[in-house]
């Protein structure tokens, strides 16, 4: 088990390295892309371009530039933006991270509650009308574009029904938890619900499928033969086993969300998290910020993958042999 964990983490570090190289190559080595031209502006003369190249170290060979960038990003931590000269990348990301984490934390609570309840209710009522209704709602939730749902929510809460039902709805923006917990929750309520709807749909569908499979297993038949109630079989036996899949999925999804999948929700609701930071940097092609944000995101995705694999190996010894 110890060896498995070590091997898994070595693999994770290698994947991180490969991702950093890939991002670097996308932005610095794609034919036709010239960061210097971006920095210098449209009407720069060749002399100015050469000066800019030299000042930003863009005239050095690619491997050196990669190493320099990693050195500034991770070791000196003084990598600064190409666009807003002087803005350090690392503090920007660290300032934005609590916003993203707040958004994901609240949404995760909602989608776990709704998703698990939906899956259990659907599986318990197979053959009744409520099961296909929940299934359809789940399909609907994964088929609606999340950013569009955010727009519709904004339209109803800020404009259409703002003078009647939703007069209490706050404008967009973010209030830190430490400053005012009530306002924090209120400002994040609609982003939470929007983000949670997609995942609640996925989780309800996954859990229903797992439960239906579990209910056909031998151990469930044994439990029935013992005379246990159907409710107890579902909640105590089938659900416990099926939740393993949900936990796995949850680890991966939270990793992906912290790593950037919440970008669209942040952009729509104007939440100054890592996603919005990345998006603004992308619009300006602000390469250091993009590198920092993407690597920050990849770190969480890779970490989540590794943790899920190790948790799996812990629960199921067969995996360790692979």
């Amino acid at each position, binding site marked *: 088990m110890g060896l498995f964990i070590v091997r898994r983490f070595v693999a994770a570090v290698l*994947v991180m390295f*490969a*991702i950093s190289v*890939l*991002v670097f190559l*996308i*932005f610095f080595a*794609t*034919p*036709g*892309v010239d960061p210097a031209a971006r920095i210098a502006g449209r009407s720069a003369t060749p002399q100015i371009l050469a000066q800019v190249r030299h000042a930003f170290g863009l005239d050095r060979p690619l491997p050196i530039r990669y190493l320099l960038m990693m050195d500034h990003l991770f070791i000196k931590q003084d990598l600064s933006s190409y666009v807003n000269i002087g803005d350090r990348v690392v503090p920007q990301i660290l300032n934005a991270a609590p916003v993203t984490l707040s958004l994901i934390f609240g949404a995760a609570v909602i989608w776990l509650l709704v998703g698990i309840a939906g899956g259990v209710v659907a599986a318990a009522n197979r053959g009744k009308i409520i099961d*296909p209704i929940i299934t359809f709602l789940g*399909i*609907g939730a*994964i*088929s*609606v*574009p999340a*950013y*569009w*749902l955010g*727009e*519709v929510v*904004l*339209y109803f809460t*800020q*404009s*259409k029904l703002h003078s009647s039902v939703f007069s209490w709805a706050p404008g967009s923006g973010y209030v830190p938890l430490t400053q005012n917990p009530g306002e924090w929750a209120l400002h994040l309520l609609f982003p939470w619900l929007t983000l949670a709807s997609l995942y609640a749909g*996925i989780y309800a*569908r*996954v859990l229903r*499928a797992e439960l239906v499979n579990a209910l056909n297993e031998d151990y469930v038949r044994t439990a029935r033969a013992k005379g246990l109630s159907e409710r107890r079989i579902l909640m105590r036996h089938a659900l416990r086993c099926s939740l393993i899949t949900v936990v796995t999925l949850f680890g991966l999804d939270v990793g*992906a969300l912290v*790593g*950037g*999948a919440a*970008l*669209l929700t942040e*952009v729509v609701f104007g939440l100054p998290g890592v996603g919005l930071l*990345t*998006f603004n940097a*992308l619009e300006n*092609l602000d390469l250091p910020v*993009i590198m920092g*944000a*993407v690597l920050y*995101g*990849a770190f969480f*995705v*890779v970490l989540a*993958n590794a943790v899920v694999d190790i948790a799996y190996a812990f629960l199921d010894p067969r995996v360790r042999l692979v």
Partner: protein
Amino acid sequence: MTDSSVTSTAKSARGPESPWRSSLRQLWRNRPAIIGFFVFLVVVAVCLCAPLYAHYVAHENPFTSNIQGTFRLHGRTIHVLQQNTQGTGLGVTPIGPTWDFSHYFLGADNQGRDVFARLLYGGRTSLLIGTSSALICCAVAAVLGVVAGYFGGPIDWVLSRIFDIIWAFPIYLLAISLSVVLLTTGIQFGPIHVGAGSLLVPILIIASIYVPYVARPLRGIVISLREREFIQSAIGSGASDTRILLKEILPNVAPSIIVFLPLMVAFNLLTESALSFLSIGVQPPAASWGTIINDGLGLLYTRPAVAIAPGIMIAITAISLNILGDGARDAFDPKAKLRGSV
């Protein structure tokens, strides 16, 4: 069924039914899946009629701005962009939905263009990108997944590591990074050159980022197939690799590919719309459902139809494809699983 005895005798006379026929029959019996299939066909057919609608019914060109335009409705002449009467009285607001099928059915956007006609044209683009990128993705993934699973060894190792890296990459960040760079430069790969504004740029980006999502499950299927007796006996009897791949492996992975296809179209449609919404997908003057939602952002509180209508179209299309995909899975390959879907 009352005539089951008749069909079963007829079946035994013809020998056992082929698995393809029985799967198709099972799919046909799945009413929601068939309804989903027909809804998708209707959406495709309606969107294909975009030029006919624009030319013969609306008499509009939805790609040129029409700021000074007027049209006649119920005997009155109406300006497409109307002077604001509220607030300072400055600025203009495009007309809202007229609900008259031949004149600005869903209103105009802030350049005076017919939103309904743009919705149909945008649907053509979105569906084209969604389906073609799903086809390219599944084809490439099928080749890579089968090759990796069948040959194993160093080929498998290299391909699997590439899949691992893309898999571990935050998928939207990868799509966004590639789009930002490739939209300005186009794609230059050996002799192949794709222009910067071309629809092929988003198609190829979306197709390539999802390859591991399809290739990895297919590789797993091929690895387990390789151990089965019929493949071992084919190898033992000296059949060539090409023959085994085409005659034995391919027919056995085809059902999984069929299951993945409609789900991937839905996935890719949503990805395209998200990229276009961030204005790094389809580039103007072309329109897609995502770009129209983006156009409608500034009008969200005055003319919400512009932003809301394309989202409803995306949702209808994705729901019908997901239901079809679920039905196809039940019929063809109940164990097939894509990451991120069920």
